[in-house]
């Protein structure tokens, strides 16, 4: 096929975003200075649990540069919205308490906002915070989700007895209990998936601007979801409808889920701008330490697991009881994560006939918990992958062979998981779209040298090292989600999840594409450009992708849940289809041929059988823009918009293998090798896909080995800064060994599955299984993460009968 423009789809082109980032010309929220801009700082609770008797702001108001001091009672807005209750067929109750813009009566975690100062400079605002006097009534705290539900525990909210947000179930209880009763083997374990602090490198921040001349609000925000915020902040919190609020996300320095949500500071900076008057914008940027209390945390599950089956390795049932810690008040979609996105994918890539999950959402005096990269699916993968290893150890079966025996067979797709996303009422189902799990596992096993595991173990032992190899054969659900499923099942935002794209081919033939999705570093500008270049036959340099501004981009639901490549890209392809169709109709007019006689190749529109009779897309766009000669009924201009609602989700899968060595004397764990064979369907830009996997793997490894949010019993966050929260560093990690299988998704025209979360979903379980494998010769059955040297050393010492 001879097209003038080289097809770039599926190739590793260099990113279009990078020139601005590598030269220091990125534009993040804190880089923006506006005329007359004032600065806001927030006084945050030093107590995990306390009543507020009074707040005296009189001294602060007199401090240099101070323009206003705000307390909760000054703000007439609603509490923040929570839009994804634990829901579905069971119609259960959610006992909801969400934060106010500033707390009025009480605080439920260290870091909840109590008062705010607006001043001429950030330093003046921070100085004045110290002059605010709060009369506190400190209360006892509870930080552990399981303990919080027990009799006598400190109670956080009047409307939530025993601190329970919800009790939610999915699956066949009677069938699963029968399977456990009838089983030859049942393995039980308590698994802790500890709390994480996501830590995108750019903290959150926002600039609010109220224009008194137009009565309109504008906010610049480090957000993954500017369109949704127009609803959540505008309508639900402030009572301001869409046409009065413009939301803009400039460059966003990483997010990993944290920047999906509706935060109090959004409404606060808008309120403050209106309050100080004069059309002055107000900027707030959190400090890192502040971020640990003002931006969501992730994970934090305690799970009681039962896995049942036969001695031949057939798994017949899995039952879990999970306590999900949701923090002191609920974040935007906090309850949805440990229910829909956890329990409904709990059986992983296995065909398990009986699965039943009970999930209790719990309030504790901790920072609120919501979606962090993977969001429920890493927790599910951790449980099922640990369960498979525990079961294999119990029956003395090879761990890979146990997995192979229980994989959903490749001829079973689309697969209707009995405890999965298709189980709810009303007939709307989400199927596992496609898969072929064995080749990916075999490839990973071969690369890792799995067959030689015992020889490697013996060799390491001779050096005083305990070697372990851990498998994680994961699947995940991406590309959320069919709106009709959300509507029918009642799980999800309580809103739609379609995506949008507008394409304009301008007079000069240059193409401006506006998208409803919002990137945070994933390279959307590059991948969308590759898609449009492929679709329209236009060179990449003639295309620009615009996004993340509610003024000028079509409504979209944002980027999270690995949905952009599947849902967003399909919207772009649909818009390109419309462009091509109109161009074809106009080419027929220009060439005096019938529509059906026009054939399109790249940007060339020509008459079949008369190859010299042709027009380029650029010529067509020029003529359509001028509009001098339009056929009857045709509108001028080449400008088309498409909205796309996906018929199903997509399901990437693969096998990750971690190889670790533990120093028997010190307990220190070293990740020696990391092998990942992923199947994310087809790839738009393989280099970008690999980058997503690398980053996800590192985050998941971070959880397994180092990262942990630690609270004291009094609710003080002990890991309260980057000094104390151990983020992975370059020298702690090896380079990763990546490979692939390709099973195209049948759900979308590109055959893509999504990759943003896959690495993070798989890797925590792989490393946890590797460490437990290394410790198993000592008789250790299960050790919880993170595998710090101290924890592992104590575990080793305990096996020796020594004082630990």
């Amino acid at each position: 096929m001879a097209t003038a423009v080289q097809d770039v789809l599926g190739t590793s082109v260099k990113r279009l975003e990078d020139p601005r980032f590598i030269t220091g010309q990125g534009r993040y929220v804190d880089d923006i200075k506006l005329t007359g801009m004032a600065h806001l700082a927030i006084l945050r609770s030093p107590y995990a649990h306390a009543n507020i008797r009074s707040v005296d702001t009189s001294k602060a108001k007199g401090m240099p540069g101070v323009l206003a001091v705000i307390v909760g009672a000054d703000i007439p807005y609603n509490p923040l919205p929570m839009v994804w209750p634990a829901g579905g067929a069971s119609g259960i109750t959610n006992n909801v308490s969400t934060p106010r813009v500033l707390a009025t009566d009480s605080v439920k975690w260290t870091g909840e906002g109590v008062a705010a100062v607006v001043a001429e400079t950030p330093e003046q605002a921070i100085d004045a915070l110290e002059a605010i006097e709060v009369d506190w009534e400190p209360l006892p705290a509870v930080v552990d989700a399981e303990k919080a539900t027990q009799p006598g525990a400190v109670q956080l909210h009047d409307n939530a007895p025993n601190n329970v947000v919800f009790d939610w179930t999915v699956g066949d209880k009677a069938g699963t209990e029968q399977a456990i009763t009838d089983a030859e083997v049942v393995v039980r374990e308590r698994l802790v998936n500890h709390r994480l602090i996501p830590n995108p490198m750019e903290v959150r921040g926002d600039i609010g601007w109220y224009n008194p001349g137009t009565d309109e609000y504008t906010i610049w925000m480090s957000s993954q979801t500017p369109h949704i915020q127009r609803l959540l902040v505008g309508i639900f919190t402030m009572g301001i409808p869409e046409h009065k609020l413009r939301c803009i996300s400039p460059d966003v320095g990483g997010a990993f889920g944290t920047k999906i949500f509706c935060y109090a500071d959004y409404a606060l900076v808008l309120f403050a701008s209106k309050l100080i008057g004069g059309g002055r914008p107000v900027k707030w940027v959190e400090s890192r330490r502040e971020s640990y209390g003002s931006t969501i945390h992730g994970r934090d599950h305690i799970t009681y697991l039962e896995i049942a089956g036969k001695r031949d390795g057939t798994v017949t049932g899995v039952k879990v009881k999970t306590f999900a810690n949701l923090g002191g008040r609920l974040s935007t979609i906090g309850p949805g994560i440990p229910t829909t996105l956890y329990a409904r994918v709990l059986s992983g890539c296995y065909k398990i006939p009986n699965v039943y999950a009970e999930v209790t959402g719990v309030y504790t005096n901790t920072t609120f918990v919501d979606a962090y990269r993977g969001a429920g699916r890493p927790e599910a993968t951790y449980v099922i992958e640990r369960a498979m290893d525990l079961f294999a150890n119990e029956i003395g079966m090879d761990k890979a062979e146990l997995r192979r025996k229980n994989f959903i067979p490749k001829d079973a797709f689309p697969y209707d998981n009995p405890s999965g996303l298709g189980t709810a009422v009303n007939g709307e189902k989400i199927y596992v779209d496609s898969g072929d799990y064995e080749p990916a596992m075999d490839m990973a096993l071969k690369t890792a040298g799995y067959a030689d595991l015992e020889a490697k173990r013996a060799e390491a032992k001779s050096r005083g090292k305990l070697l372990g190899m851990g498998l994680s054969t994961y699947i995940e659900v991406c590309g959320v989600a069919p709106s009709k499923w959300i509507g029918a099942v009642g799980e999800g935002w309580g809103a739609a999840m379609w995506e949008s794209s507008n394409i304009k081919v301008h007079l000069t033939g240059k193409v401006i594409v506006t998208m409803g999705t919002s990137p945070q570093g994933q390279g959307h500008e590059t991948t969308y450009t590759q898609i449009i270049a492929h679709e329209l036959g236009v060179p990449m340099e003639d295309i620009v992708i615009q996004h993340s501004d509610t003024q000028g981009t079509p409504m979209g639901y944002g980027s999270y849940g690995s949905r952009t490549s599947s849902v967003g890209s399909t919207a772009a392809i649909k818009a390109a289809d419309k462009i091509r169709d109109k161009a074809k109709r106009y080419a027929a007019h220009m060439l005096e041929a019938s529509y059906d006689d026009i054939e399109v190749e790249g940007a060339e529109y020509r008459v079949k059988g008369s190859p010299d009779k042709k027009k380029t897309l650029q010529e067509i766009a020029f003529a359509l823009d001028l509009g001098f000669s339009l056929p009857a009924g045709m509108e001028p201009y080449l400008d088309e918009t498409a909205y796309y609602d996906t018929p199903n989700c997509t399901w990437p899968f693969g096998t990750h293998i971690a190889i670790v060595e533990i120093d028997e004397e010190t307990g220190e764990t070293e990740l020696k090798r990391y092998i990942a064979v992923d199947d994310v369907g087809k790839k738009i830009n393989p280099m970008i896909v690999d980058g997503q996997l690398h980053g996800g793997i590192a985050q998941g490894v971070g959880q397994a080995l180092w990262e942990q949010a630690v609270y004291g019993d009094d609710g003080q966050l002990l890991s309260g800064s980057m000094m104390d929260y151990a983020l992975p560093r370059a020298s702690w990690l090896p380079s990763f060994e990546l490979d692939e299988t390709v099973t195209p998704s049948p759900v979308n025209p590109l055959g893509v599955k999504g990759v943003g979360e896959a690495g993070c979903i798989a890797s925590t379980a792989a490393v946890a299984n590797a460490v437990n494998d290394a410790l198993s010769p000592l008789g250790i059955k299960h050790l919880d993460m993170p595998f710090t040297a101290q924890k592992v050393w104590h575990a080793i010492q305990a096996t020796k009968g020594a004082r630990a």
Partner: protein
Amino acid sequence: MVEHIALTVNGTPREGDVEPRRMLVQFLREDLELTGTHVGCDTSQCGACTVTIDGKAIKSCTMLAVQADGANVRTIEGMQAADGSLHALQEGFWAKHGLQCGFCTPGMIMAASDLLDRNLDPTDDEIRHAIEGNICRCTGYHNIVLAIREAASLMRAGATGPTPAATPA
């Protein structure tokens, strides 16, 4: 109370009146409006604020602006040559997908420039050690190592080195 400071930034003499508590990073970002240098933490852990002073990487969040009086500072904005061509490290990060969100990238590049100034043929271990003070949350460091290796290779082949044309006499 303010102090008057005079220093060289990216080859250009700059002056300012600063509060004694003002950090170098604030002076660069807010007073000189060089916003390519970022603030990622408040405990000198993340390295997003890394710049070089006389070629040595420092965390500008941990140095007072008054301490930089008289210094020769280089930031990410000073890495390109006068003709706009990219520094080998910038080329390397672009070619090897050594960045995603871009927030840590300026600091990474400045830390790496210190390394390559000392060692034009570093091993992967040496690269990983040299950027240990810089946290990246997006890349897992895999491609950053490749990017710095690529830059070293370009520089060994004669591309622009870390001692820039823009540095004043």
